[in-house]
């Protein structure tokens, strides 16, 4: 039984075909990587899955339910969370406040106009756990906008995790990071995958990260699937090498 099934989705922007008939099936507990040269349509593909806009054609099924026409926030409520290539956080709020909001939304409290001491304490406890897991406890009351890039990214991942998702979509989680930060984030993602059995789909450029994490890889080029397989198979695939080298040359 698959958790996410994408069937033949396409996205046209005018005459540009950003995504062309891509299908993908992700089972529970799997960590799937999506790679491809710049402009291959990876982020557009993510935007279709997460509900940024509806696809021009095709169907998306999540947890056995057709979500093709469902708005983004309802997909989140169903258990699908995502991060963005350019970190999307609340820069002028503290780490604690950033996490507090998704924790309360996940508890079904988004419309609650007051709060009892008891639930207040419960929410704070959950926020503390998340900060601990993300290695952010020491920076709890700093404004997120003032933190280094790696901590901002960790905050964004923990915000997504606060929603208790069953599927986590990560768009280039290590983009623009130094070696140490890349290592820390990779370790965090690996922990979420191994310890919490979280299903993850991630877009990534850093091959070391992908080979370290992914169970299977899907390669996109010019909007279409170029190859699919285990990291070892993908590394040996000549078409993949050509697509990357062709772009580089």
């Amino acid at each position, binding site marked *: 039984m698959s958790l996410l099934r994408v069937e033949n989705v396409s996205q046209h922007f005018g005459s540009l075909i950003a995504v062309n008939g891509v299908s993908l099936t992700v089972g529970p507990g799997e960590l799937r990587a999506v790679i491809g040269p710049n402009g291959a349509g990876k982020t557009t593909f993510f935007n279709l899955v*997460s509900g940024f806009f509806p696809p021009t054609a095709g169907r998306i099924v999540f947890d056995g339910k057709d979500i093709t026409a469902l*708005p*983004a*926030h*309802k997909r*989140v*409520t169903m258990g699908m*969370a*995502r991060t*963005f290539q350019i970190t*999307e*956080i*609340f*820069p*002028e*709020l503290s780490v604690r*406040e950033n996490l*507090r*909001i*998704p924790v*309360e*939304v*996940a508890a079904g*409290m*988004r*419309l*609650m*106009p*007051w*709060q009892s001491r008891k639930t207040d304490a419960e929410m704070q406890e959950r926020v503390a756990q998340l900060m601990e897991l993300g290695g952010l406890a020491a920076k709890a009351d700093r404004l997120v906008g003032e933190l280094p890039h790696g901590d901002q990214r960790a905050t964004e991942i923990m*915000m997504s995790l606060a*929603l208790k998702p069953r599927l986590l979509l990560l768009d280039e989680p290590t983009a623009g990071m130094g070696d140490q930060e890349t290592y820390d984030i990779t370790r965090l993602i690996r922990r979420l995958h191994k310890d919490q059995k979280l299903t993850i789909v991630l877009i990534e450029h850093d091959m070391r990260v992908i080979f370290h994490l992914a169970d299977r890889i899907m390669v996109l080029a010019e909007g279409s699937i170029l190859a699919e397989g285990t990291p070892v198979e993908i590394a040996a695939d000549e078409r993949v090498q050509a697509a990357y080298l062709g772009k580089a040359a």
Partner: protein
Amino acid sequence: MNGLNKQATNAAVWLVLLTMPYWMGAVGGYTELACRILVLGLAAMALNFLLGFTGVLSFGHAAYFGLGAYGAAMTLRYLVPSTPLSIVVGVAVGTLAAAIIGAMIVKLRGVYFAMVTIAFGQVFYFITFRWNSVTGGDDGLTGWKRQALKLGFTTIDILGNDKAFYYTILVLFAVAAGVMALLLRSPFGRTLVAIRENERRARFLGIPVEQHIWLSFVISCLFASLAGTLYALLNNFTDPRALYWGQSGNFVIMAVLGGMRSFWGPLVGAAIFVVLQDYVSTQTENWMSFVGLFFVLVVLFFPRGVLGILRRKAAS
């Protein structure tokens, strides 16, 4: 800002509000001026619930302020001589209009939202301006007065006794401010700040952004129309200028002047605005250019408003 500091600010604000009628005279003011500060302060705080804490700029809040004013005035003029009922009707009319108009415009953002709120505001302005037989047209609606409050065990003469009316307004102001403060500290209030800070992130945290903006708009307009009813009762009169878009602009100026990121900022802004208006307008007809100059200076040099400066001083 730490909790102690916040409590000190709250205590100071309430102390000033509770004692205002007793020292207003000594500093060259009068009780009616204190009432105006409270009423316009409430309107600016109501606007700021949407502007400062949800990040949505409405340039048409005078519409709901004015609907509250006309709702109250017409109730007293045509229906029943009851002050409480006139307030209820005014608030109901303003809130209902906000609920309907809000539903039509919550998908718009930024300057488009602001433009459409102006347009809807002007519709109500022209209705009151033209419909002479009912609204009194350009001359305003006269021939009515606020009525003494009959509470069963006692009667409060809010018409003859200025101070009694001031404290009646203060009670309603306190309830409104209390409700807004409570909401802003709640999970719902935090979703509004989330939308202000990063709408895309809010949406992808599972918050239906349009629904929450609509709620914030309606709550904001509810308190703006409450302020409108009190404004009409204060003047025993209302005219179309209460709904004019210039009035909406004044509310925005008050909020920005005082500091739209702080809860009490708009009240401070309203006080400065009202006092400047009262004092400078006795010296020159062009008082608005002085308010304008002051506004420009604050925005240029203290973008967080007057209360923002005081806070930074207190923190350093």
